[in-house]
């Protein structure tokens, strides 16, 4: 968790056992540069100062993805996003962390002007995801 990775074809990016965390996938179809971030917490606004750039936070992770992608040649205006995760693994537990992670990711992407073209979020099921940077196809699997 907190990992941010950038890749080009023929590499695939994967994340497994996603619960309340949200995996954000950014893709520039023109340059075929993709990135994935696996963040655990909604926002660093409440974090300690030294943690503010910690990519376990959704907003910091998205900032880092954009920065790394642009450095490698992606055009920010081309980016499109997909979101996976944000579940509540204990349906009877009053936990809003998954929902807040999704809301935080959406808010940050809107602020950055990045369109969300796909999402598989919420519910109470764990997910794994594979992103083919060559094709731009995102495959989400569950154990059920």
């Amino acid at each position, binding site marked *: *968790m907190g990992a941010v990775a950038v890749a080009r074809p023929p590499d695939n990016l994967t994340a*497994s*056992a*996603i*619960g*309340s*965390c949200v995996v954000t996938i950014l893709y520039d179809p023109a340059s075929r540069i993709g990135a994935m971030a696996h963040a*655990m*917490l909604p926002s660093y606004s*409440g974090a300690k100062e030294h943690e503010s750039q910690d990519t*376990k936070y959704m907003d910091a992770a998205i900032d880092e993805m954009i920065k790394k992608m642009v450095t490698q040649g992606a055009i920010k205006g081309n980016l499109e996003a997909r979101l996976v995760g944000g*579940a*509540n*693994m*204990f349906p*009877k*537990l009053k*936990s809003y*962390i*998954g929902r807040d*992670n999704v809301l935080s990711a959406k808010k940050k992407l809107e602020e950055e002007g990045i369109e969300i073209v796909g999402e598989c979020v919420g519910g*109470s*099921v*764990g*997910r*794994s995801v594979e992103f083919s940077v060559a094709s731009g196809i995102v495959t989400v699997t569950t*154990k059920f």
Partner: protein
Amino acid sequence: MLKSQEIIREAAMSASKALSKLTDVPVAVGIHQSNLLSVKNLQPGLNPEELVVGIYLPVAGEILGGALLAIPKKDAFMLSDLLGGKDSGTTRKLNELDISALKEVGNIVCGTYFSVLANKMKIRIIEQLPNYSYDMFGAIVSQILADLTQTAGKALFVEMEFVFSPIFFRAYYLLFLNSSELEELL
């Protein structure tokens, strides 16, 4: 003896007694290994994609945190056979009765640890209702970590087995704490 080892040993003995009472057969709770891990880099040694039954018992009172009992799918199904008085290998899918029985096992095991901790520390720990999940271990644990990460510093990881002679079941216990006093105790 380390305090954490003493707590684990006492809790295992209490859990053995309580599970024996629940099932009406002698049950021994064995400890394979235990480690005190940093929550920030938690690697409990179980495949994150492994399907487990997870029973999570949050606590309130003078300390905040929770405990998770994770039972791998195969062991949970075998345990359901035993708890439900079914022939071995009968359980293919967990029904409400199976889930209720597994929650009770989780409640007993997690509860005994909290009782021992409360006695050692002379504090009041208020147990909340047990919560059930059946999914990938990593997905379950990450949510607990996310809920507690701002406060919890350490997690106690215990690999255990329940012996209903001659059958035994694997289980994994994780205790998440936010109290610095408790970290010192452990």
